[in-house]
């Protein structure tokens, strides 16, 4: 008999749900008509989204074309070719720069291993994942598209759905954890800072003791 009442309690549960508020967010991908709601949910600060290629404060590119990111990429989605800098007109400080840099977003799994591997912190990730494209060519982001602008903010490509303030914090992961996951660097900022933003303090709450 108890089984039977349990059985009907299930019906009560689903019926009660009829009167609860909806959890759906009214997201329309930036294509809403006027007076239609179009809101994004709040994303976590360290979300892995599409990449950017960073610059130094003087406008030089950070990428040195070492191909470590391509080597570590488990999805084989990064294609890099380095070239020698022109001594009179260098693209990056040092000898080499990445003159081809392509990421195929049909393959990328946003694991952030490339960000960890990068010796110059040239590649980091934004929080943007609303960049659905209707064309395979748009899936392959080239160096020109990935590079941040002169103000250090990511470029906003036509098919990407950026909202106010979302182009901040393009280095969320770098600030959140210590380099290479080494706990001795806990709380020590090893990050050189983004152009126009400077170095922000490290996020706390990473260590084992604090987590407990």
């Amino acid at each position: 008999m108890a089984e039977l009442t349990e059985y009907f309690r299930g019906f009560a549960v689903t019926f009660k749900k009829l009167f609860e508020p909806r959890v759906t967010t009214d997201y329309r991908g930036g294509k809403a008509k006027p007076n239609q709601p179009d809101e994004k949910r709040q994303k976590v600060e360290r979300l892995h989204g599409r990449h950017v290629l960073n610059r130094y404060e003087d406008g030089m590119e950070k990428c040195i074309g070492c191909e470590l990111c391509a080597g570590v990429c488990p999805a084989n989605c990064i294609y890099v070719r380095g070239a020698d800098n022109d001594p009179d007109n260098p693209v990056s400080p040092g000898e080499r720069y990445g003159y081809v840099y392509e990421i195929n977003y049909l393959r990328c799994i946003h694991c952030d291993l490339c960000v960890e591997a990068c010796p110059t912190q040239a590649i980091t990730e934004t929080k943007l994942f609303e960049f659905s494209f209707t064309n395979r060519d748009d899936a392959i982001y080239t160096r020109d598209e990935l590079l941040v602008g002169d103000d250090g903010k990511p470029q906003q490509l036509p098919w990407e759905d950026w909202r106010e303030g979302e182009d901040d914090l393009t280095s969320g992961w770098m600030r959140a954890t210590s380099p290479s996951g080494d706990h001795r660097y806990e709380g020590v900022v090893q990050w050189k800072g983004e152009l126009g933003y400077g170095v922000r303090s490290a996020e706390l709450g990473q260590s084992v003791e604090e987590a407990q």
Partner: protein
Amino acid sequence: MIVAADPLFDGSFGLPELGIVLLKVVIAFAFLLFAVMFNIWFLRKVISDMQNRIGPNLAGPWGILVTLADGIKLFFKEDLVPEKSHRFVFKLAPYLSLIPAFLVFAIVPIGGDFNRADGTAGEVSIFGHDTFLQVADPPVGVLFFLAMSSLAIYGVMLAGWGSGSKYPLLGSVRASAQMVSYEAALGLSIAAVVLVSGTLSMHELVVLQSGQGFNAVVPGWNIFATGFVPFVVFLIAGTAELNHPPFDLVEAEQELVGGFHTEYSSIRFALFFLAEFMNQITMAAIIVTLFLGGPSGPAFFFPAGWWIGLFWFFFKLMLFLFGFVWLRATLPRFRYDQLMDLGWKLLIPLSLMWFLVLAGIQVGRELGWGSVEQTIFVLGFGLVSLVCVALLFLALRSARLRRLADLDQELTEGSVPWRS
């Protein structure tokens, strides 16, 4: 009590009568198509409400045109016929499941004032001709429903077989086994209704259930006259006949891809879904007609006008459509052996037993039994059925014990490879 057949055919059958019949057919056809549109939208909206979602909200106001959008999309998809399929059967099957769904609705009375006592109950006047709000009222209406619901199996079975692929075949084998098993319980609970009311005509069934009912408080519906059990059995067996959750093993996605319609695409696929949702509507209409008095509402509420019949009918229909959605939102799918257990070990014996009780009471009424005889009958029958149930459980228990003993023996002898 003999109620006259559709008064439309009383006099000569001429052009105006033919026109009215055609009009009714067209209206029923159009109504069913719109009802399916509405039903799918209703299902998706209510089930998303039950899951704290919004559901379809883009096509039309409140997303009400979502079915139309789906239909247009499906219509323009590529229509594939698999290489290994039996082409004729493959193309025939969707229509075989669609047409019975349409036909069943033809015998359902959907409106009319059934509270008139002058022998014209349920008649309305269209262009000066008295007729029923019902496409056809065959004297064997209930049997017609049973026949059509059995015919619908052919669509599913031939779709699975004609696809020439294993998952559809498995799905259709499941479907036919399930539908045949539950057809028995369905038929027995209908038999209880027929026994109590003594007619097979749908119109007459509604007439018999109309009026003041018992003590003018409880409506004289068959759900009360047959004592609830046939209603519950019919509801469960009917849900199983529809292959509706929790009985949707036919298209169990996790096991069978899509079940019998795996290989179908485009408009043929749409036809299967049209049939499925149309069957829901017709099944709800049949339940309402058989057990809940159809368009003859509770007589003590606003007892006037022919439109009140329409209102009551659709009100009750909506209750059942909501019930189907509720089932879908709440219950997980049955395992196949549970399905068979429920059908064969519970529903069929139960409905058979109830049928016998009703038959006994009916015989007693005809023989003019007093309360003493009735009490003796009920007690005696209760005793006999108790013994039967006990015997059934004893059989099940001993079979189970024997199975366990066999397994134990196998395990100790080491004949089972994973134990040795």
